[in-house]
């Protein structure tokens, strides 16, 4: 309920949440973030790392990369989100302008719809496999036809859960968080039974340059956690202050990714398959496969639910959607995911690697811009009124609602990334093995934004005075 006792439920709006409305403590936030982070992508990321690095080196490189990436996301989106109870998209208005924010909003929409589509397809496929394993379905080609049906079913369940807003998302997380521990148990199983093979296994696509291989492991970790930027604001804004969010974000959201990615890393190295439901059948028989499929099904469902919620809150920033009902907004958010899951599922499977790389290209510079703006230019001062205004006299109007410094910085960061590492071919520059691609991209965007903002400040725009 709003400040006047009227209006929409606060957690279903894109408006700033008042301190008394932010009731999530560290434990609740950790559970929600961990459930969001743990999904099928973990073992796909692990498989990607396993192409270049062995188990121990790969795990350590991935762990380092994930923690670095998470720190960047937290420093970029965290301060504004936690100060004013706003989401990731609203937090970009001081940098991109009162209209320019649609650029990060588009990035968020593409990212979340993409990821959610991928995960919901995995969910549906896992549910079919689980039904077969439990004897509820026969093995047959027609089972493939069940995938779209299960996609629609999952979307309907998510819709019903999210009708309760952030409370619904938290409720789903409380139920599904057990899968994180199932994942760790699966990892223990593989490591304990196949340790000698695991240590001896050679990564199939390793470069002769061992520094390049190691850096690529780190880069994959950074890229993976940078993809949390669109999600994080909608969740941390439910916490009352900065102290409450740091450990849940760094341990609840960042740490499960490398830990559960070890499942895919180990599986791909030893059994040449990152899919735990496949290799658990080899290691432990059909019962273990059923447990694994339950894990996969639950994991993807939890993550997609959080993604839908974050996406719906992001859409609230569009004036046309501010007044529409939460139910309508949920339907608008879920529809693209359902359509992709029904009509073009294989396309998303085939393009996963490219998709992950493209996310790194977009979000690394975005983080650089936000960090420089908040900590170096505005020194922690955000005009919350200007975040929600779109009039020429307001601070974040810049020029026609757009800050050219942010656009130039974003472009510079993306170009820098591609120069350091081509996300499609993995061709890299000589400096890449020593610097990664995400970190120079973040730095380049930050520097261009810093110098570009000097001109903006000189012109008296942007509310920096």
């Amino acid at each position: 309920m709003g400040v006047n006792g009227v209006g929409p439920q606060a957690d279903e709006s894109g408006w700033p949440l008042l301190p008394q409305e932010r009731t999530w403590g560290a434990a609740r936030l950790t559970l929600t973030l961990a459930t969001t982070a743990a999904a099928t992508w973990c073992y796909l990321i692990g498989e990607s790392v396993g192409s270049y690095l062995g188990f121990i080196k790969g795990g350590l490189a991935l762990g380092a990369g994930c923690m670095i990436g998470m720190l960047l996301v937290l420093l970029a989106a965290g301060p504004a989100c936690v100060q004013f109870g706003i989401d990731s998209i609203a937090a970009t208005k001081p940098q991109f302008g009162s209209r320019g924010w649609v650029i990060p909003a588009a990035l968020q929409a593409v990212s979340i719809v993409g990821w959610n589509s991928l995960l919901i397809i995995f969910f549906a496929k896992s549910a079919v496999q689980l039904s077969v394993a439990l004897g509820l379905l026969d093995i047959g080609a027609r089972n493939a036809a069940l995938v779209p049906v299960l996609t629609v079913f999952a979307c309907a369940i998510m819709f019903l859960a999210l009708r309760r807003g952030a409370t619904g998302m938290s409720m789903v997380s409380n139920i599904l968080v057990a899968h994180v521990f199932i994942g760790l148990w699966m990892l223990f199983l593989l490591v304990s039974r196949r340790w000698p093979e695991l240590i001896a296994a050679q990564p199939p696509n390793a470069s002769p340059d061992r520094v390049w291989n190691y850096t690529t492991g780190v880069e994959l970790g950074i890229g993976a956690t940078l993809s949390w930027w669109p999600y994080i604001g909608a969740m941390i804004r439910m916490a009352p202050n900065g102290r409450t969010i740091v450990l849940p974000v760094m341990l609840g959201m960042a740490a499960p990714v490398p830990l559960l990615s070890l499942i895919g890393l180990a599986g791909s190295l030893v059994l040449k398959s990152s899919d735990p439901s496949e290799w658990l059948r080899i290691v432990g028989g059909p019962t273990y496969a059923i447990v694994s499929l339950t894990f996969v099904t639950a994991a993807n469902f939890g993550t997609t639910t959080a993604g839908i919620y974050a996406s719906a809150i992001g859409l609230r920033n569009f004036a046309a959607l501010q007044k529409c009902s939460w139910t309508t907004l949920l339907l608008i958010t879920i529809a693209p995911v359902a359509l992709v899951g029904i009509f073009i599922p294989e396309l998303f499977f085939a393009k996963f690697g490219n998709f992950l790389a493209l996310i790194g290209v977009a979000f690394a510079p975005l983080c650089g811009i936000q960090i420089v703006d908040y900590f170096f230019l505005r020194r922690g001062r955000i005009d919350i009124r200007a975040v929600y205004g779109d009039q020429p006299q307001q601070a974040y109007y810049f020029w026609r609602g757009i800050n050219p410094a942010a656009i130039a910085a974003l472009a510079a960061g993306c170009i820098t990334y591609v120069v350091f590492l081509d996300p499609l071919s993995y061709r890299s520059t000589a400096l890449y093995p020593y610097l990664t691609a995400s970190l120079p991209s973040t730095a380049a965007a930050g520097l261009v934004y810093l110098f570009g903002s000097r001109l903006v400040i000189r012109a008296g725009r942007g509310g920096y005075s």
Partner: protein
Amino acid sequence: MNEPTPASIRHALPPELEARIAAFENAAPRPDFDTAGWFWMILLGVALPLLLLAVGWWV
């Protein structure tokens, strides 16, 4: 930020949003991260990755 807001801007916002913004403007500025938060961020986001990288490189 605590300067008087022109009426044209105030009236452009929905009343509920206006009330929320006014609540923030009338309250003391809220801090982002405290010392403990920065400590954990540096430990987990800088020191731990450096340690992991060093160990991973030498094993």
